[in-house]
């Protein structure tokens, strides 16, 4: 029955792609959202059955067919189901379904209604294939499929009057940058094929420890290349620049990319191949450093954005950074836990932001919003819950439990370090600052644009469900000083190893939790102070002495300019020179040479006798000289 889970969205895609334009409009969301909903139900049914049997190392596989077979190399179309895949499958189908439901109303008046649902279903299918694959090549199929769908969806409004070029650029950019990562990844696959003769994940993971020595050349290279792929998809340094531009797509697409699919693919890949990273601890350290650097850069950049969706985009970059950090210090289940919680609150935030944007005539600028608290109470409260979770307000939000676990492990794991903790706690403080800056600007203060639209049930239901989950989902995994309730990590530890802690860390867990909690609250207070109570000093800074810094952060640390200067400009220049192909000119030159010789010789045949005689004389002279000299 497992195959039905990815097959249902695929069927949805096929129906909508082939008959979408000819079927009645009302049927489109029924098929588009309905099939994903059935897949979510199926996941829950299979999941309940699975939890009963889940013992360490337990998994089951469903062989569909062999993709191809050449000698020993025979990648298969086989689905693999274990606790890690199950967690991802659940989030993809469940959160995915809520997003589909929301889109049924959000996209109602769009001309490309059926096209939208077709792409979304294909997106869901690709992501499901990615997390259910038992073979890296099949995983790569889902991996690239996700890239294609994000390209199509980011550029969904291809004929927008104002932004057609910008949307196309954003779509192209996302595809190209993730493709750079993918190419690194596929080179990594070539290496694995050579060393193991297979791409079956389980076989590789069992053979690798015996075949590779710790930090051996192959292990380091392979993990680095896979990491390249993960960085591209998960928008981590240095390939993070596509994600903020990806906001060009409709809001449910952003929710899909950021919460249920796409950006978490990198986290999945690293968790899935964790055995390889254990063999290459130096690369695992790089993962932690990349995660830490990205989470810091992302949270700083989020602080200087005006566009509400760009704030959320940078916050995603930063939150995925936390997950990378967790994987880097060996806290795999903490990373996956944060992934689940993040999926809930980030989907919620994007969907709520989408409702706001829709109500304000596609206004994205937060400084033109304000006072929406009274007008859109449901959106306000759910957005507030999501923001609280994102800023990890202590005790009452799910985000607190998941992020706090990561920061604790970054500090106390044998692979952790105080430095990683310090940077991550500063970023956590910035997170609550930028999050509540967004909340206050959007929902408090005076009303600047009048909302023109009241969200209906299909928008409200997903918001409320996700809002509740953002608060309570954290209780499935509590820190050990809070009663040591570890339902989630026990479940995952059948697949992923538990984190190894230092025997006696320098500080207690409680002290760190208290620091984090207090900093988060201070962040909220400062946001209130600067954006509601006394906005003037900050405004002066923003337009006065700090304008350079502001612009620097607003453009995401100017990575785009750097890459533009380093890569884009030279390459475009290279493609412009020699447009006519110099090789062609060489052959053209040969042709011209022949014509010239032809012209020269035909000139000599001019019918004048004395020229001929002169020619004869010179010829005879040369020949005679040659004979005499030689």
């Amino acid at each position: 029955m497992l195959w039905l889970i990815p097959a249902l969205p695929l069927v949805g895609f096929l129906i909508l792609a082939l008959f979408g334009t000819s079927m009645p409009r009302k049927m489109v969301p029924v098929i588009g959202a309905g099939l994903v909903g059935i897949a979510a139900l199926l996941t829950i049914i299979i999941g309940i059955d699975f939890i009963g049997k889940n013992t360490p190392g337990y998994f089951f596989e469903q062989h569909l067919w062999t993709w191809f077979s050449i000698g020993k190399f025979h990648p298969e179309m086989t689905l693999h189901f274990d606790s890690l895949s199950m967690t991802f499958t659940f989030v993809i189908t469940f959160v995915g379904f809520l997003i589909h439901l929301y889109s049924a109303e959000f996209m109602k008046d769009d001309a490309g209604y059926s096209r939208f649902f077709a792409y979304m279903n294909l997106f869901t299918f690709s992501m499901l294939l990615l997390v259910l694959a038992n073979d890296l090549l099949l995983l790569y199929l889902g991996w690239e499929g996700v890239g294609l769908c994000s390209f199509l969806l980011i550029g969904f409004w291809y004929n927008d009057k104002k932004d057609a070029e910008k949307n196309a650029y954003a779509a192209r950019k996302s595809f190209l940058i993730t493709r750079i990562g993918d190419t690194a990844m596929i080179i990594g696959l070539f290496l694995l094929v050579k060393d193991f003769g297979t791409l079956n994940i389980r076989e590789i993971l069992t053979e690798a420890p015996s075949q590779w020595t710790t930090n051996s050349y192959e292990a380091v290279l392979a993990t680095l290349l896979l990491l390249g792929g993960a960085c591209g998809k998960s928008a981590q340094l240095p390939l993070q620049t596509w994600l903020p531009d990806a906001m060009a797509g409709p809001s449910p697409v952003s929710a899909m990319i950021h919460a249920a699919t796409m950006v978490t693919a990198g986290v999945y890949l690293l968790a899935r191949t964790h055995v390889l990273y254990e063999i290459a601890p130096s690369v695992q350290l790089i993962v932690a450093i990349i995660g830490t650097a990205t989470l810091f850069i992302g949270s700083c950049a989020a602080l200087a954005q005006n566009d509400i969706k760009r704030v959320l985009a940078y916050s995603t970059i930063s939150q995925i950074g936390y997950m990378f950090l967790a994987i880097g210090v060996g806290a795999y289940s903490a990373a996956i836990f944060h992934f689940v919680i993040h999926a809930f609150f980030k989907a919620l935030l994007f969907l709520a932001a989408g409702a706001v944007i829709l109500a304000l005539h596609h206004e994205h600028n937060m400084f033109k919003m304000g006072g929406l608290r009274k007008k859109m109470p449901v959106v306000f409260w759910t957005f507030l819950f999501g923001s609280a979770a994102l800023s990890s307000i202590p005790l009452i939000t799910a985000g607190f439990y998941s992020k706090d676990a990561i920061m604790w492990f970054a500090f106390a794991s044998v692979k952790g370090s105080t430095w990683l903790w310090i940077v991550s706690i500063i970023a956590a403080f910035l997170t609550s600052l930028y999050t509540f800056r967004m909340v206050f600007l959007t929902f408090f203060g005076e009303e600047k644009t009048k909302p023109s639209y009241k969200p209906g049930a299909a928008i409200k239901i997903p918001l409320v469900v996700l809002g509740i989950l953002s608060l309570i989902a954290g209780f499935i995994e509590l820190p050990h000083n809070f009663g040591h309730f570890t339902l989630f990590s026990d479940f995952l530890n059948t697949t992923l190893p538990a984190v190894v802690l230092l025997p006696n860390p320098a500080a207690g867990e409680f002290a760190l939790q208290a620091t984090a909690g207090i900093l988060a609250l201070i962040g909220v207070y400062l946001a209130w102070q600067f954006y509601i109570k006394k906005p003037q000093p900050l405004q002066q800074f923003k337009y006065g002495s700090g304008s350079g810094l502001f612009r620097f952060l607003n453009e995401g640390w100017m990575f785009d300019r750097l890459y533009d200067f380093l890569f884009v400009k030279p390459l475009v220049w290279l493609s412009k020179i020699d447009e006519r192909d110099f090789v062609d000119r060489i052959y053209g030159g040969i042709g011209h040479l022949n014509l010239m010789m032809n012209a020269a010789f035909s000139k000599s045949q001019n019918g004048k006798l004395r020229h001929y005689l002169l020619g004869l004389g010179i010829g005879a002279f040369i020949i005679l000289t040659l004979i005499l000299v030689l």
Partner: protein
Amino acid sequence: MILVALLLILMIGGLLGWLLSSVNKNIPKWISLIALCTDLVLVAGLWIENAGNVNLSGKGGWIADVQFEWIPSFGSTIHFGMDGISLVMTALTFFLGIAAVLSSWKNVEKSEGFYHFNIMWLLAGITGVFLSLDMMLFYFFWEIMLVPMFFIITIWGHENRKYAGWKFFLFTQIGGLMMLLSILGLYFLHGYNTGAYTFDYFQLLGTAPGGALGFWLMAGFLIAFFVKLPTIPFHSWLPDAYTEAPVAGSVIVAALMSKTAAYGLLRFVIPFFPEAARSFAIPGLIIGVAAILYGAKMSYGQRNYKRLIAFSSFSHMGFIVVGVFSFNALAYQGVLMLMVAHGLSIAALFIISEFVYDRTRTMDMQAMGSFWDQMPNLGGYTVVFIMSSLGLPGLANFVAEFLILAGAWQFNTVLSVLATMGLIVSVTYSMRILQKVFHQSKAPVEYKLNPMSPREWVVMGGITIAIVWLGFFPQSVIGIAQPAFDNIKTIQVAEKISPQMQKQTYTLNQVKAVSKTEQKGGDL
């Protein structure tokens, strides 16, 4: 006999259509269509019959084989044979032949009869190349391809057709002559060594010595194939010929004729000259990589739709060269897969360019934009073929490129990484087609674009099904070709251990080193 029938159906169909065109000018295209469909059914029958491939290995991989006397005094016979590779390629020829005929169903403005005669004889020439096992016969079909193609370009082409036609003719003719010299060289060498003067493929195997002589004999073949493929530095005829040819011509020259060269590399160069080919491996790989990257660079700079596709085809041919010179079972299967996959995707892209040209009368991409509004279905198909051509998994080209690059990695890491960069740059130019034509701002001129006609649906739908099928079930090609590739491998190994070869070219140690690398590469 079925092999002869395949050829005769095409040739007679062409003649018949020409003769009957005076009765009604619609007759030739129907005859062509029926003839090609008959051939496709025949080949499909062979394919299904041999799909299990269990009994194939017993026959040395040969599915059908037929031999008649031709010119006994020269030792030349009419010898056709079909193994998995030729089976796949002939099936592709007939399939794309149908697509080519259908795509030019309405646009032939003058002398339909002669046009279809040329198409059919061109396809017959290509089929003959895929089936010939006698070098004289092979050369005969190789030249037969040339003349109809020349007529198709110069008579039914676009504005600059004369120039393009002559350029095409000169390049390929000179390449062909080089090959003739090498064929004769092999012929006389074999006659001198054994006393038996023969053009037979199997007899000539193992004739070529190593060293300089072997290298120069190989060079003749290589030049002919590199020109036809084409690859750097012989590609200069390609953009003109591909762009100026009418759509059926573009489809056949890009999707099928270039594959005869790839086929030639696999069928003749590697088995005839194992030592020389191996000594040429690194330069070969460098040529392939250069073609991939240079083709992509040229492609990105174009603003003419067809020229852009033409250069992208040139870039993809680089992968074939890389695969051939990787000497590896994965890469060889990848080359065959790419021949099929690239044939399908490039044909589809050229046909789309024709469908667009039909409606707009322009090939300039600057004059296009936002066509999705009016032609969403054609846009959807374009997404499929663009994605296939940039190697999206799940579509045919990915399997091919993956196998080639994974094979190349085992042979030479650095060059295979450079070739893999082709996957990145292919995104840049492929995206331009999709976005510039179907997305982005509206075209400066308002066009009235009709939705796709049923004929267009059939062509696009058929190729899409083939591409998706091969993306998910490539085993249907790989399985049937496997015995043929096993053959090539055993030939190579047998060459390596023949004692006289060692004396001539290699010291014993070198041979050991070579066969060692081969074992390493051949493990898979």
